[in-house]
């Protein structure tokens, strides 16, 4: 307890008392003037320190915040560069098809066949009537990305749109006769995947932000009805009624779907004799 008592009883710096005793012994006045340059300098330093500390904590510029802002800025720059590269890929693809067409000559069987296949393969932007399905997380389902770790909650936010929902909807769009499908502007091809990574939905290796807009082109008379009456329509109704997910299905007279960016195969090469003869 001596530590506590000494701390409580003698809080003043012993230096003051010692200096006062020394001066008393020397016969000078006990107190020295307060307004001296030395005190002024000390007060200046104190004011500076307190102000700087107040500014730092007030602005919340902690190291973690800075690192977070840095990471966000880097992600954003990379995303812009990916978008730019995607745009250049699309324009180059358009060049390639134009050159192919001119090389083959108009009316050529090969170029006609390529033109027929390109919309199906997803290498060409297409336009036509179809459906727009907008899915968004339910109100108050904690859509903020912060603290949405996959392990944080054993029961993941139910009001959220899951990758499974998009998969089911897209699959049923194909079943109902869709001829081209895109999710948030990412055209789906034979090489596309819709999957979950943590709390984010990944389509064509790009994470999507909400809302999720699925656009599909199909026969205007039969396609919307076939989708609405099939399992996809009832699944959307379940999402809406059970999980309060906002679902909006609209029929569009004309939809523009972009070309897919990544359809090149790096390792799979075409077998030469497509006609079915032995490849060797």
């Amino acid at each position, binding site marked *: 307890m001596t530590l506590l008592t000494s*701390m*409580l009883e003698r809080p*003043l710096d012993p*230096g003051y008392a010692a200096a006062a005793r020394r001066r008393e012994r020397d016969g000078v006045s006990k107190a*020295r003037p307060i307004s001296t340059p030395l005190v002024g300098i000390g*007060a200046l330093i104190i004011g500076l320190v*307190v102000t700087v*500390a107040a500014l730092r904590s007030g602005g919340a510029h902690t*190291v973690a915040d800075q690192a977070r802002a840095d990471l966000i800025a880097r992600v954003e720059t990379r995303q812009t560069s990916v978008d730019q590269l995607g745009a250049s890929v699309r324009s180059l693809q358009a060049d390639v098809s134009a050159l192919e067409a001119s090389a083959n000559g108009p009316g050529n069987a090969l170029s006609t066949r390529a033109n027929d296949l390109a919309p199906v393969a997803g290498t060409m932007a297409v336009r036509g009537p179809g459906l727009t399905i907008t899915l968004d997380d339910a109100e108050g389902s904690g859509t903020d990305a912060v603290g949405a770790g996959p392990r944080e909650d054993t029961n993941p936010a139910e009001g959220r749109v899951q990758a499974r929902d998009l998969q089911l909807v897209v699959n049923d769009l194909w079943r109902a006769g869709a001829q081209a499908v895109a999710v948030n502007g990412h055209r789906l091809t034979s090489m596309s995947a819709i999957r979950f990574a943590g709390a984010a939905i990944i389509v064509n290796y790009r994470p999507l932000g909400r809302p999720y807009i699925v656009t599909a082109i199909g026969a205007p008379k039969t396609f919307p009805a076939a989708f609405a009456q099939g399992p996809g329509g009832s699944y959307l109704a379940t999402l809406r009624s059970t999980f309060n997910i906002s679902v909006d299905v609209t029929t569009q007279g004309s939809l523009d779907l972009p070309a897919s960016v990544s359809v090149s195969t790096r390792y799979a090469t075409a077998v030469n004799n497509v006609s079915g003869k032995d490849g060797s």
Partner: protein
Amino acid sequence: MIPALGLGIGVILGLILQPTVPGWLQPYLPIAVIAALDAVFGAIRAILDGIFDDKVFVVSFLSNVVVAAFIVFLGDKLGVGNQLAIGVVVVLGVRIFSNVASIRRHLFDA
């Protein structure tokens, strides 16, 4: 007069310059603030006691900051930085409280 002037100039300098505190110095800023407060209240009490000494004031402030920062630095190196920082804050906080209590007795006789 000079102390008040110095304090004002310090605050204005801090506001105008907005110095960027290097990352390795940031953990010591709160400690420095507590030490500064301790020095200020100690000085006020000494003035009221009639034993104020300018040299003691400046030296005690600087040495408090340096020792407190050193203890926290040592604690960081040993992996107990938070605990030692709490210790420093407790010691200086107790001093501030009892100095303020003494000042209050001087000023209000209560």
